[in-house]
């Protein structure tokens, strides 16, 4: 797929994220927008998910360990034509679009997440199962930088390395912000690269908003055949909406009507 098409998909995804969170007047825009480009690339270029296999285990699977970015996952599924629910029901009563994704509510959600760090651990179990079944499928797992303050994250990576899970790729959304501020000031989880390498993972890095750079990182890790990998995606929290960028107050708050209109207008103006 051309970068131009990927950019259009990413723009649509961002608009859906804003639409959902505005409609619900609740949700987490900052960390959904920061990871939009890299997850758009993943779903449109790497994963073999389609209408035919969305309910099957017989495909690559994705764990959104930073489950509060649920609007991103729903928007991506919607952009792929796989979302079995109206995005405007997000976070509302009787909706399949739970505040944090639930695999029991919505097909296409490969693991229920929301409690931070746990998805990274579950992804190890999924990759182990793929190894047992020798099915060749890959597990992708998006983790947050603030989330990496959880101890289980590192237990998971230790195990992923121990079991030589070359069929597991973590993606770190490194936007440097968590609810209470800069990650380095709240509880510094850096340096990531050195920590991952010390835990035995292969590390690639990319500009998380540049499709050439993202493509290169995915290509690089796909050559690794002896250990789990992590792609450190350098991102901007709130990317694409000027007033949300690099502002931790947009971690978990919804835009008002004026902000909503401005956000959509800005995204529409973006060069594809």
């Amino acid at each position, binding site marked *: 797929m051309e970068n131009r098409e990927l950019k259009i998909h990413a723009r649509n995804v961002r608009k859906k994220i804003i639409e959902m969170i505005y409609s619900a007047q609740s949700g987490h825009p900052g960390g959904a927008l920061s990871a939009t480009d890299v997850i758009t690339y993943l779903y449109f270029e790497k994963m073999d998910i389609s209408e035919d296999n969305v309910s099957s285990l017989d495909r690559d699977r994705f764990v959104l360990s930073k489950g509060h970015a649920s609007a991103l996952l729903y928007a991506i599924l919607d952009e792929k034509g796989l979302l079995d629910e109206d995005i405007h029901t997000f976070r509302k009563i009787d909706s399949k679009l739970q505040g944090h994704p639930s695999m029991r509510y919505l097909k296409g959600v490969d693991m229920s997440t929301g409690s931070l760090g746990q998805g990274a651990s579950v992804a190890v*179990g999924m990759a182990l199962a793929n190894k047992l079944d020798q099915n060749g499928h890959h597990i992708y797992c998006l983790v947050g930088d603030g989330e990496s303050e959880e101890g289980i994250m590192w237990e998971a990576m230790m195990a992923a390395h121990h079991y030589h899970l070359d069929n597991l790729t973590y993606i770190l959304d490194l936007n440097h912000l968590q609810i209470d501020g800069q990650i380095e000031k709240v509880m510094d989880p850096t340096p990531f690269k050195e920590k991952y390498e010390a835990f035995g993972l292969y590390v690639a890095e990319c500009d998380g908003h540049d499709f050439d750079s993202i493509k290169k990182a995915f290509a690089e890790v796909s050559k690794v055949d002896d250990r789990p990998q992590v792609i450190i995606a350098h991102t901007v929290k709130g990317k694409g909406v000027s007033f949300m960028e690099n502002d931790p107050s947009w971690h978990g708050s919804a835009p008002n009507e004026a902000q909503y209109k401005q956000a959509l207008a800005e995204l529409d103006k973006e060069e594809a």
Partner: protein
Amino acid sequence: MKHETRVAYGEALKELAEVNKDIVVFDADLSKSTKTAELKKADPSRHFNAGIAECNMLGMAAGMAASGKIPFASSFAVFASGRAFEIIRNSIAYPHLNVKVVATHAGLSVGEDGASHQAIEDIALMRSLPNMRVFVASDYYETKALIKHVASIDGPCYVRLQRGKSDDIYDEDSTFDFDKVKVLKEGDDVALIATGLMTQEALKASDILKDKGIDAGVYEVVSLKPIDEEGILKIVKGHKKNFTIEEHNIIGGLYGAVSEVVAKDPSNPVYPIGVNDTFGESGQADEVMKKYGLTADNIVNIVMECAGK
């Protein structure tokens, strides 16, 4: 005869794995104690040691279950149910994943290791989780059947086993209906409703009470959740005094489960015999059990006091 229930667990795992290729087993550096090492000997490719990382063990088990496997995950009850509680809540119970948490070394009968290792709250923790089924086994034969039973259930299960040996209550030919309260002995005067290791104490207490002129029925509850409401109500309606007997805090365990049923139709009182909302301590298992009142003699004393004969 006396046997260890955890030995039955190891044997059952091996037998299950032979006939079901989806069975996988996780442990957290206690495989010789929990007896999951039995499966490791039989098929090392399906035994995963998480190391001393119970949270990650349960997370990995959830991932296996999300991939269609039937994982059994074991550690001591304190760590399996307590340290990993929120992993079990959010990554196993909430998504209704088919993980079997089999916890050994529950209760005060852990003995010498002391209170840090004596789970008295695990039943309460696990019982409070939607989707979770909770079982407590009393003897070797029952454990073996119970492990096979939980393997056949599609959904999360918690099984509580103890460290030490317990009296054989059943034998090779026993059949089990785990959905029902088991009547071990009918008795007209009082009902002793027991679970796990305390079942043997309830049976002994019943014998002693008989000599004192009290006819005590003994009933075993294996499935604490869901609990056999009909069976419990029938027992309690049929006895003027009822006693729950457990090696667990009287808050949230068997007493809680039975009281929740009985309170819907109060007829006859139920008295708790168990760990009285206190931590345990070190000592030989029988000494600790005696000090904290988890013996046939103390059951007799309490029954005599309450039943007043």
